[in-house]
């Protein structure tokens, strides 16, 4: 089982819960932590499920709801905003046909916004899974999205 093999990498110490949650979520096609997994993690760390849930719900990068295969995070903070003359968020929304915090019907993308991701020197930017795409133009953004979509057809 996926969760078991990740748990075995970590000592049975409660302070590793965030590391474990990040790893479990990353390995999952639908990018979220299920109740079943919470139970296993709590059992392994000898803590309560409610403690694991309180951690899970506090941190923005962790999700309790199923999401798409690729998580797109568009930066919406000021340094990106003032260098974005084509409206990156709208471009992505229009391409995917979903609003933010929604998943496409083919479950390939979930669109989210993010606070600054420390790449303001190459704004505007978006993060897809664990890669940041910088200095975006409208054409560049669409090309990147097409490539992600293409991989799945």
């Amino acid at each position, binding site marked *: 089982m996926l969760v078991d093999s990740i748990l075995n990498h970590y000592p049975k110490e409660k*302070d590793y819960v*965030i590391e474990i949650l*990040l790893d479990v979520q990353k390995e999952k096609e639908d990018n979220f932590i299920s109740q079943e997994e919470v139970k296993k993690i709590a059992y392994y760390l000898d803590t309560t499920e409610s403690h694991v849930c309180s951690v899970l719900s506090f941190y923005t990068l962790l999700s309790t709801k199923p999401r798409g295969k690729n998580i797109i995070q568009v930066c919406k903070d000021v340094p990106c905003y*003032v260098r974005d003359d084509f409206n990156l968020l709208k471009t992505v929304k229009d391409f995917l046909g979903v609003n933010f915090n929604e998943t496409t019907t083919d479950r390939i993308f979930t669109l989210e916004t993010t606070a600054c991701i420390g790449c303001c020197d190459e704004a505007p930017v978006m993060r897809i899974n664990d890669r940041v795409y910088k200095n975006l133009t409208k054409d560049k953004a669409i090309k990147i999205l097409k490539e992600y979509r293409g991989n799945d057809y």
Partner: protein
Amino acid sequence: MEQILLSKRFNKIDPYSIKDYLKSNGYQILREALKMKPKEILDEIKLSKIVGRGGAGFPTAIKMAGIKNETDKKYIVCNADEGEPGNFKDRHLMEKDPHSIIEGMIISAYTIGAYHGYIYIRGEYDTAIDIMKNAIEEARNNNFLGKNILQSEFSFNIEVRRGAGAYICGEEFALIESIEGKPGRTRVKPPYPSQAGIFNYPTLINNVETFCNLPIILDMGGKAYAELGSDYISGTKLISLSGNVKKPGLYEVPYGTTIKQVIEELGGGVDQGRNLKMIQLGGACGPIIPRNLIDMDIDNERFEIFDSKMGAGAIIVMDDRFDLFDIIHRNMKFFEHESCGKCMPCREGHRQVVTLIEKFVHYNATEDDLHSLKSLVDVIHETTLCGLGQTSIASILSTMTFFNEDYQRRIEDSKRKSETLW
């Protein structure tokens, strides 16, 4: 104007290669430091007059001395949570010269007698996380970390811990809670982390850039380092320059350089020949100042006139296409989202501030709204538990002084709009 100390290895070495670092004098200063007494190292740091680079500007030597005397188990933490909009210096340091951070951490650990260290990196910094993990592994394989470092009596290890998307975890007690595997909510001070930090043991927390300065200080000597910079702050500063300038980027300058020099000489001035409207200093929690104040120096002391600090060294430039209230609105949405929820004035206050600012954005503001906004930001500033609430409203406090006519004009225009609607 640039003075290159912290960024001397940038783009010159492969961050994945400890060999490159060793070839450029890497870990040489650690070797020397391990021959010194901890007290001698602390004296050099004291002489250097260095203050922390994470935003609050507290003298580093005082913090270290405060911990040194405690006996028990001690921890050291490198704060790499960098989440303040407009800041990217710590990412550059991690991605371009990771071993200098590790070297600074080992020297600090030896000085205060810590046995274990963490580097807490925000979860979005995937590349930096990968590079730091690799660097720690390489340092361990070369006995710069681990048992009996370089045949000395001293043993020390470092572990990477990832954040998971909460800006508040940059605040020191929220960070400690997060390392302990809990939601990142701050604790009431005192006791301070230097007294009771991680698992209640004394803990030294410093910013990435602060640690990187330590090998430089020992290399040139505290006295020579104190000569660098301005009358108020010693050393150089990494400046994250972003927004509407020709060349946004990371620049290293001595304290005492003016904001104008950074924007015009390094950043190439405002992009596309447009006019400068405003500059935000430090990031989303910093003041917004008008064009006529850019002759000001980059050092914390001068900013106390608006009860806020230079922060971690961000300069965000905005040209005159942008509306003041639109910018403030984005700042406040950020804090509304990032509030940890522990205290009411921050949790509820930011929600109300957002609503009030929206009235200004949409030309629906009245004189009464301005009064409410004023008293609300004072309450948030005065009564919140941690630095987030205490500084989040700097953009409003500063613009009420420097852009007062924008507030007045918006109220006038709102009135006109409502009259024509009748």
